[in-house]
């Protein structure tokens, strides 16, 4: 940890992927940045770059973000080949420039996966994730159906495991970090969250079969257990969820009548 209030100005070289549209060819462009404050977040550094580009009459770099607090899952970016950059359990919007050194070259790319096509520059289309949730990532309960919240006790252990899986922010870093562009960690997080709770049990077989089928349809790759997804996950979703997903799937296919 650095000393408080140590302002150092960094000089940086940025190599950024620029691509004008979904079907256009992309290329790396190089930008020099001077005197970047170490108190800035990574995205604030890009804001400053964009202001400089606009001043010069050039088009700013497109990149997604919203909350800038590490929770909405909208920001992305491969930074020097790592999804969300070098810090563990940290989204790009929470990465700060004090993590870098004067003179560094930083390569910035969009998530790369055929299921996440580039929209422009660093922004990609992650609607495949929504379609996977649509296929079954829910409990079928209409508003007004609920009984008293304390009717179904849930052991604290289970609740905590469920919460740890539910913490997924849906950013897609797991897919971007995986050499197969597999979405298993994302899918397993939702399947686990609900499988661990009594509320999720009635639909567990249907849920897992439909979500996995949709995942395959979207063109995500298979899982070969390299655990890059877990290392890249800003919400620290564990790969043990993938093991649970596999069990749930097997159980659904072998045991359930509606499974296949």
């Amino acid at each position, binding site marked *: *940890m*650095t000393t*408080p*209030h140590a302002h150092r100005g960094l000089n940086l070289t940025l190599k950024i992927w620029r691509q*004008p*549209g979904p079907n256009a060819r992309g290329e790396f462009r190089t930008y020099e940045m001077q005197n970047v*404050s170490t*108190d800035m*977040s990574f995205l*604030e*550094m890009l*804001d400053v770059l*964009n*202001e400089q580009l*606009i*001043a010069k009459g050039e*088009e*700013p770099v*497109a990149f*997604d973000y*919203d*909350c*800038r*607090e590490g*929770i*909405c*899952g*909208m920001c992305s970016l491969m930074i020097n080949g790592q999804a969300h950059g070098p*810090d563990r359990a*940290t989204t790009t919007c*929470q990465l*700060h420039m004090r993590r870098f050194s004067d003179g560094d070259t930083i390569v910035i790319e969009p998530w790369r996966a055929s299921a996440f096509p580039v*929209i*422009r520059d660093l*922004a990609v*289309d992650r*609607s495949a994730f*929504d379609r996977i*949730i*649509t296929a079954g990532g*829910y*409990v079928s*309960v209409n*508003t*007004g*159906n*609920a*009984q008293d*919240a304390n009717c179904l*006790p*849930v*052991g604290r252990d289970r*609740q905590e495991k*469920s*919460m740890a899986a*539910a*913490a997924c*922010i*849906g950013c897609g870093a797991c897919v971007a970090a995986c050499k197969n562009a597999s979405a298993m960690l994302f899918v397993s997080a939702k399947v686990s*969250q609900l499988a661990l709770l009594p509320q999720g049990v009635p639909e567990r077989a249907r849920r897992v079969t439909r979500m996995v089928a949709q995942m395959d349809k979207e063109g995500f790759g298979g899982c070969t257990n390299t655990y890059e997804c877990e290392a890249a996950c800003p919400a620290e979703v564990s790969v043990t969820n993938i093991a649970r997903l596999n069990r749930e799937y097997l159980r659904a296919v072998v045991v359930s009548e509606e499974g296949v």
Partner: protein
Amino acid sequence: MAEGHATTTQGSPRLQSNAPTGDVTTRWDRHKFDLKLVNPANKRKFNIIVVGTGLAGSSAAASLAELGYNVKAFCFQDSPRRAHSIAAQGGINATKNYCNDGDSVWRLFYDTVKGGDFRARESNVYRLASVSTNIVDQCVSQGVPFQRDYGGLLANRSFGGAQVSRTFYARGQTGQQLLLGAYSALMRQVDLGKVKMFARREMLDLIQVDGVARGIVVRNLITGEFESHTADAVLLCTGGYGNVFYLSTNAKGCNVTAAWRCHKRGAFFANPCFTQIHPTCIPVSGDHQSKLTLMSESLRNDGRVWVPKNPGEARPANEIPDDDRDYFLERRYAAFGNLVPRDVASRAAKKACDEGFGVGETKLAVYLDFRDTIKRDGAAVVKGKYGNLFQMYAKITGEDPYSTPMRIYPAVHYTMGGLWVDYNLQTTIPGLYCLGEANFSDHGANRLGASALMQGLADGYFVIPYTIGHHFATSKLPKITDDHPEVRGAVEAAKARVNKLLGIKGSRSVESFHRALGKIMWEKCGMARNEAGLKFAEQEIAALRNEFWSNVRVMGSGEAFNQNLERAGRVADFLEFGELLVHDALTREESCGGHFREEHQTEDNEAKRNDADFCHAAAWEYTGGHDSFVGQKEQLHKEPLTFENVHLTTRSYRE
């Protein structure tokens, strides 16, 4: 029951609250019974547009689709799951009284009316408190993993100054879990074909036919295409306008555009000056600052707020002995101490800094110290409760809050004002409803912690499903198509505006205008306001707006993904809206809740309400025509507020 208190304010005939009278505890039941119903087989004939997929929008869209209506839902993010509600940390209130500590619907009703400094409608607040329990039931049934005790039952904590433990939470990520619950209900309806979801769409205008809301114009943010969507009702669930201050704890995309467009077409905007400043945020670190980060106020349960007693104090915090520390909240507010409501805590911090006691490099911060709690309970316990918040603080500041006190400063956080709505959540435009933070309804002049999530979900799950049917059952809604002149006109107006922005080709960036506006708002209309400052701000904003329309530089084209253009549109609307906010603050000659007029304070610097003249909601009507903006064209309408159940008293947190 307390004696009724009527205000002298003359009510505007244009503001019919449609709130029932009589026994407050049965008003909602009686009202539901009086509302007309749409029979189950006919519901599929009605189409509803829901703009926004935060807690309010997702819950409304899902619940209405479950009833059988056809719903189209819109958001500007790439997925409905990313709405700003996702960022809420602390929790959601419900009067379950699971802790057996004396909570009840009546107590939450009382706390909310009082906390809002007597500027909310009693009927609405009572309804909110009474449906709070259903919300938690609903969320649990969806699989929201709320914190539980070892016995497997739900855990509660006291939050935001409440003297009972009624707050349900999921780690420090309650908003995320509630939103993901509502989002899953929404996606289930997408799966069932009852909701059509349109992400990366921004609403740019409202379509009205014969004065009734019948659709919206959106821009597809990926392709730049303009689309019109028609329906039988439109629900705005578009969140708050805190980003008019540029720096706030809101997500970057939060905006006033949808509400403002509707305002310009006839929806009254109520109490815009009621904005909430949250006391515990990470201070600004430099000019590059793009947003402020909230540290959940649950931290005030265990952290102690202080500044050094000597203005020139040079010692590091840990070396300052207790005798040289001023725990100013504990000193000034014996009964509530560090747990006073947000507005009170924020102003006290500002006062300490204004008087020269601030800490850190900028001197615009106070300490929030866990030393004593760590000594008492151990670091492990503190980590268990606040680990993720401490980690977030360390990431942002580079400092370790376990060994040095946090530095905090107030920041804009929430907006109580919004479109005026009646008891049915209908705006002054028939067929246009407004839910969640975007409306003005339940929090008066100050919102209590953990009550926004509750209100958003109350509106969406348990109010609108009942009230909207009345509109369908009682209105003539002839079919309209995309070539209706009003539809075409609204599309053309939206296009023209975008082209105008692109055509200016000036030299100053959108960002720089937004920052400049934020600075005016924060300095003149932030935590403390006075007449001279507000008048100055009105002129400054008008001048900035003029410069914007002659000198803004918007890059790129309208026919592509263009974030610079998106932002330009939002800033343009903030530049119009900011003036109304300031004007409302100038007009409200009293201090109440988050609105503090320096001219109206007690000798102890506490807010001084003026119930004789201001016990009303101020609803503004724009009279300048929707296709241009003329400043100073706002006409005031008043909805008098009566307090029959909670006595109008001065809030006191001292004893």
